[in-house]
Every structure is written in structure tokens, then in C-alpha cells.
């Protein structure tokens, strides 16, 4: 059974077909949400909400488009809503909803080759740059697909990716873990 078949059946209201789509894409949606929100619990909430929203809107989905881009766009928008909510609600040290600390296998060093270092460095990026980098490198999306997922023009995607690479290069070369210029909403979660 191909994904196209599952999508068509899900559009027709087939719950089992949609369940297959959930199984197929849950890891990716969770990965994006986890990297964007840096909070495992919130990421799970986003995964649930994203698929529920998709299920409700399946009748409006264009089957000629990739389902993956659509579900990632829904999840990305949910993550953005949560960023906004965080901006409005400053986190405190005891806030149970504060972000997880950035992953730190070991401090980013000059080699920059260790996956844990890169992951930690990636988490220091401002959200918009992080999103572009995550979609490009972790999820291997072409630039046009990133534009579709983020709802941004292609030129903006390129700029965000360039800034993400520049900041990462600086972080990896300097062995820093501080957030880059522009800041992230989750600075409070970092030590």
C-alpha cells in the first residue's frame, strides 16, 4: 500500500488509512517539534494536535501535494503558536513548562564532527534559523519544500539557512553554546 493510497482513503474518511499515515510520519513530526520546542512533553502535545487537526481537515487536503509537507506545516504552525505563548509568559526557574536544557553529549569543540556537539549547537540557534536547518539537514527537505512547510518565500529560506550555517560555524569553531544574535525564546531554559 502506497502513501498515496493511504492519503486517498483517509480523505474518504478511512480511519485505518489515516492511522497508517500517523505511523508513517509520527517520528518526523515529533522530531521537528522536539527540536523546535526543546521540550519532550510539548513535542508530544504538538504531535497529537497536528494529527488531529490534519484528520479534521483531511477533506480539504490536496492529494497531489506531499502529505509529509502538509503535516510538517501544521506541526510547525503549532510550534510557532507555542513560541508566541512562551514569549507572552516568561519562564521561571521553577516553571514546569520550561524547556529541556539543550542536549549536551559534550561541549561543542573545534572538531565539530561529533553529532552530540552539532545537536547542542543546533539547539542554540534562534528558532527560525533552527527550523530551516532542521528541515534541510535532519529531514533532508529541498529548499522549495522548506518554503512550503514554513510558508516563507524561497529567498527567506535561503537567508535563514545561511544565517543558521554561519552561526553554527561560529559556535562550533568557538566551542560556544550561547544563543546566537536574535536570541531564542528558550534562553531561560538554558543554563
Amino acid at each position: 500500500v502506497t502513501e498515496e493510497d493511504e492519503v486517498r482513503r483517509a480523505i474518504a474518511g478511512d480511519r485505518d488509512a489515516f492511522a497508517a499515515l500517523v505511523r508513517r510520519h509520527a517520528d518526523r513530526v515529533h522530531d521537528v517539534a522536539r527540536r523546535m520546542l526543546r521540550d519532550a512533553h510539548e513535542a508530544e502535545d504538538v504531535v497529537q494536535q497536528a494529527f488531529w487537526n490534519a484528520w479534521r481537515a483531511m477533506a480539504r487536503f490536496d492529494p497531489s501535494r506531499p502529505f509529509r509537507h502538509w503535516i510538517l506545516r501544521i506541526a510547525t504552525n503549532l510550534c510557532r503558536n507555542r513560541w508566541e505563548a512562551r514569549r507572552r509568559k516568561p519562564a521561571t526557574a521553577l516553571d514546569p513548562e520550561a524547556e529541556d536544557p539543550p542536549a549536551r553529549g559534550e561541549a561543542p569543540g573545534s572538531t565539530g564532527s561529533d553529532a552530540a556537539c552539532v545537536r547542542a549547537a543546533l539547539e542554540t540557534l534562534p528558532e527560525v534559523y533552527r527550523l530551516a536547518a532542521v528541515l534541510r539537514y535532519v529531514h533532508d527537505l529541498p529548499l522549495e519544500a522548506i518554503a512550503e512547510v514554513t510558508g516563507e518565500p524561497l529567498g527567506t529560506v535561503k537567508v535563514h539557512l545561511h544565517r543558521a550555517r554561519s552561526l553554527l560555524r561560529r559556535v562550533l569553531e568557538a566551542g560556544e553554546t550561547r544563543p546566537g544574535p536574535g536570541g531564542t525564546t528558550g534562553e531561560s531554559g538554558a543554563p
Partner: protein
Amino acid sequence: VSDTLPPPSGARAEPPVPDEALEALAAGELPAAEAAPLRARVAADPALAGRLARALLVEEALRSLRVEPAPQGVVARVLLGLPRPVPASRRVLLGRFAAAAASFALAALSLAEAAPALAAEAPALRLAEAVAPAAALARRVGSPETLSAVPDVAGLPGAAWAALGAALLAAGPLLARRWRRAPSPGRPS
């Protein structure tokens, strides 16, 4: 950076290579027509080659990242909470109901436009504004003066008909949600 230094005597000055171009080259995103001359420049310039090497390191590091699996149980929780679908027959019914409600409200507004001389029931219109967001639409379609001049139809003041139509429009989505929540025989929960 050597690509910003003056070129050797007799050589044509070339513009400096921005980081974006080197990153795009490292990422394989540069069109072939631009990549070839840039590679030639990199080959002739050790400083450029160093910058490209750093860009390649970042590129390689980023490409080493993998999608991490979702925790166990996430898929099950998603499926457990999946709302029941609205059967196609109900969707058609809801669509017809919404269309009928909209037609009703628009007909009432048309009456308001057609018979401006007759008296109106302003309180009813205010009620419509209070209970129905669709009254905003009514305000856009007709001015308050014309809306307040709706004729009496079937014993009811015209503005009351408008209010009824607007209320129907507002109630449509609520009824739709209620229908959606209703158990659907033959569907697994």
C-alpha cells in the same frame, strides 16, 4: 582574506566570494553554471579553499544528524484521541443547512433593501447583532438605515426575519460541531 586582496598585476579584479556562495557550493545548492567558476577560483586560492573547507565541515556535521524516533506510545495516544469523522452524508446535510441559512439571511436583507419606507423593529436588529456574528455581514451588505426599514412579512417584523436568519447562520457551526461529536454507528471508536 586573500580574495579581498588586490589581484596580481595584470590580472582582472574579481569580486570577493561571499560566504553564502561557498555554503551553497558546499551544500550542492549552487547551479552548475555558477559552481564551476567558483570551484576554479577556490582551486587557485588557498584562503578560499580554507573557507570552503570550513563550510564543508559544518555541512558534514549537520548532515550527520538523524531523525530521532518518537517516544513509545505517541502514535497510540494520537490514534486514541482521533476525533470521529463526519460521515459524508452528514457533511452534505450540513452544507445544505448552511446554504439554506445563508440564503434566508440574504433574502431578509434583500427585503430590507427593497422596501426602505416601512418601519422597522430596531431592538430586533440589536438582538441580531448581539447573538449573531453574521450581523457583521449584514452591516456590510446594507446600511443601518436600510436594515432598520425591513417590512413586515408573515406577521413578523422584517428585522426579526433578518435576526432569525443571522442567528441561523451563527448556529450552523455549533450544530455542526455537535453532529461531529455524535457517535457514528458502524465506526470503530
